[in-house]
């Protein structure tokens, strides 16, 4: 263990401070063409027709690609986990969000490619967009798909976690505290816009210079779209000018690769900041409704949660995000009875994706706001209310995991100390150890029995 705790120089530090680090936009290749993408101006519309002939005839344009040119248009990011593919790479017959990619143009320079976008004639038939996920279950809400606006994956239409007797907990409660929490969508906004350079090699392979955060993931998605073997693709990357989850969706590579194959020239596509902000995938916005059953002496007896996760127009990683969210809805606290329901809702917003613990951050935000609200209703110190209900060794998580060494108590005590918040002696001296005495109330006596109940998903069905 020579590295842990040591101040080692960064392996890429010298290149960073001398300007020698090669980011994706710093690569170029002889004869390189510039790529630009035509994007939907509408939140929701049927595409009646796409005519690229004027753009193709424009001087300086070397190639145009649409859904007709991609060997496999619909590829799912979570197909390996059983989530059906639903997202076309190029819009085909409809657009479901403002900014959705319809066509790609390769031209001798960026200005020519940009000018050619205006020469692609698309006839739209606009539809009423669905933008407020709280109306997902309204019978008259616009439908994103024939199946409706709510999805998860077969056989479930939502993720549920159930533990203990929730109804009994709410009957027994002295206080019921309710809250709605709505963390908004966030653009990852790395300073480096995403993009790639695809070079067709003489042996038929494609070399793909990319800023992807996930090289093998991108290789797999690209190989699927192109219907090529991964071995026919050589990805060069690993240098990412910030990603934070926003560079895992392989947004630029398939289009640039198709144009490189079509033109037999290197093709580079770097998103503009405007594209990055308006069309790039974001962390989802969420609507979380939470009710806590609490005893007057400050014990959290039960919790009910309803979550709506705004996936945007297509699935991407949302089912996974909603699952992570659901598994964390007790937070760092022990809740003996819990019933959560998380729905993933399609809308006409941009598709949402990874961003730094996505799914969990929305759960944490809601839980911590709710804990503070609960403490205020009880007239308790919010720090002490958290410590009283903190996870302890031997406690049972909603997922039936028995905790071996949780850190809630130590962390809250350290935070209180760091900000100078005084704790009463009882809580300042509280130890992170198994329950006994005053810290073993009746409602937490049967945790070992609950652990044997098995699948928390199954328990509720």
């Amino acid at each position, binding site marked *: 263990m020579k590295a842990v705790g040591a101040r080692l*120089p*960064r392996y*890429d*530090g*010298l*290149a*960073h*401070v*001398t*300007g*020698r*680090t*090669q*980011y994706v*936009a*710093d690569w*170029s290749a002889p004869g390189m063409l510039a790529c630009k993408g035509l994007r939907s101006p509408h939140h929701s519309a049927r595409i009646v027709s796409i005519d690229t002939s004027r753009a193709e005839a424009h001087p300086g344009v070397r190639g145009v690609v649409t859904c007709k040119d991609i060997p496999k248009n619909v590829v799912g990011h979570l197909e390996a986990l059983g989530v059906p593919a639903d997202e076309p790479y190029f819009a085909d017959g409809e657009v479901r969000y403002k900014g959705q990619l319809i066509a790609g143009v390769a031209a001798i320079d960026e200005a020519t490619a940009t000018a050619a976008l205006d020469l692609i004639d698309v006839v739209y038939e606009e539809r009423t967009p669905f933008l407020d996920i709280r109306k997902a279950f309204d019978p008259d809400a616009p439908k994103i798909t024939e199946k409706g606006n709510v999805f998860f994956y077969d056989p479930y239409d939502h993720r549920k976690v159930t533990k203990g007797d929730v109804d009994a907990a709410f009957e027994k409660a002295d206080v019921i505290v309710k809250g709605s929490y709505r963390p908004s969508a966030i653009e*990852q*906004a*790395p*300073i*480096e*816009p995403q993009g790639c350079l695809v070079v067709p090699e003489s042996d038929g392979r494609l070399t793909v210079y990319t800023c992807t955060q996930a090289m093998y993931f991108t290789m797999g998605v690209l190989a699927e779209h192109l219907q090529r073997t991964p071995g026919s693709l050589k990805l060069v990357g690993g*240098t*990412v*000018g*910030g990603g*934070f989850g926003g560079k895992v969706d392989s947004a630029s590579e398939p289009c640039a690769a198709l144009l490189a194959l079509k033109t037999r020239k290197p093709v580079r596509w*770097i998103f*503009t*900041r405007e594209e990055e902000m308006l069309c790039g995938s974001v962390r989802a916005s969420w609507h979380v409704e939470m009710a806590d059953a609490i005893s007057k002496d400050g014990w959290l007896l039960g919790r009910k949660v309803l979550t709506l996760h705004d996936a945007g127009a297509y699935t991407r990683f949302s089912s996974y995000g909603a699952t992570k969210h659901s598994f964390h809805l007790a937070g760092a606290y022990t809740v003996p009875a819990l019933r959560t329901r998380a729905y993933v809702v399609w809308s006409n917003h941009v598709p949402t994706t990874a961003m730094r613990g996505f799914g969990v951050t929305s759960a944490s935000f809601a839980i911590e706001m709710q804990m503070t609200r609960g403490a205020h209703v009880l007239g308790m110190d919010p720090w002490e209310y958290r410590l009283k209900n903190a996870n302890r060794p031997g406690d049972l998580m909603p997922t039936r995991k028995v905790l071996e060494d949780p850190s809630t108590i130590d962390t809250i005590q350290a935070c209180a100390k760091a900000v100078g918040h005084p704790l009463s002696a009882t809580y300042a001296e509280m130890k992170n150890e198994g329950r006994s005495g005053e810290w073993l109330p009746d409602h937490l006596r049967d945790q070992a029995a609950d652990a044997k109940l098995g699948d928390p998903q199954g328990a509720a069905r």
Partner: protein
Amino acid sequence: MHLVVNGVEEEIRSDALTSLLRVLREELHITSPKAGCEQGGCGACTVLVDGEPRRACLTPLAAVEGSEITTLEGLSDGVNLAPIQQAFYDKYASQCGFCSPGMMMASTALLTSTPGASREQIMEALEGHICRCTGYVKIIDAVESVANGSAGAASNGAVAQGGSR
């Protein structure tokens, strides 16, 4: 048109209204100034024009005709790192590294005009520069270490030893 870039006289063929950023990156292949937004918002393209920090993305070539341009590539003597580079390296002020060139150029301008700049002056000089990785503290610490003389001595030959990948 001509520019003096990192001490080298250059004849420029780009159109007069081309941004200085595009001239540097695409005509001269000097790539340390970064195109983070090309709207003047992020600071990653900052270079020195006759010693003053400028957003290269918003500066047309015609406006700087004949000027001396300094980029990150021009800060070291080719063998030793400049103090600001050494401080960024030693104090982990670069994480993904994309905003670092602009940060270092703005810091260089500040430390030239105000060698003993205070922490407040450093924060003011860097306030138009966005970093999404570090949270800024290590960047400000690095600049401050140069300003107050607590930075370590440059390790000889650091540049010559490489760092390219």
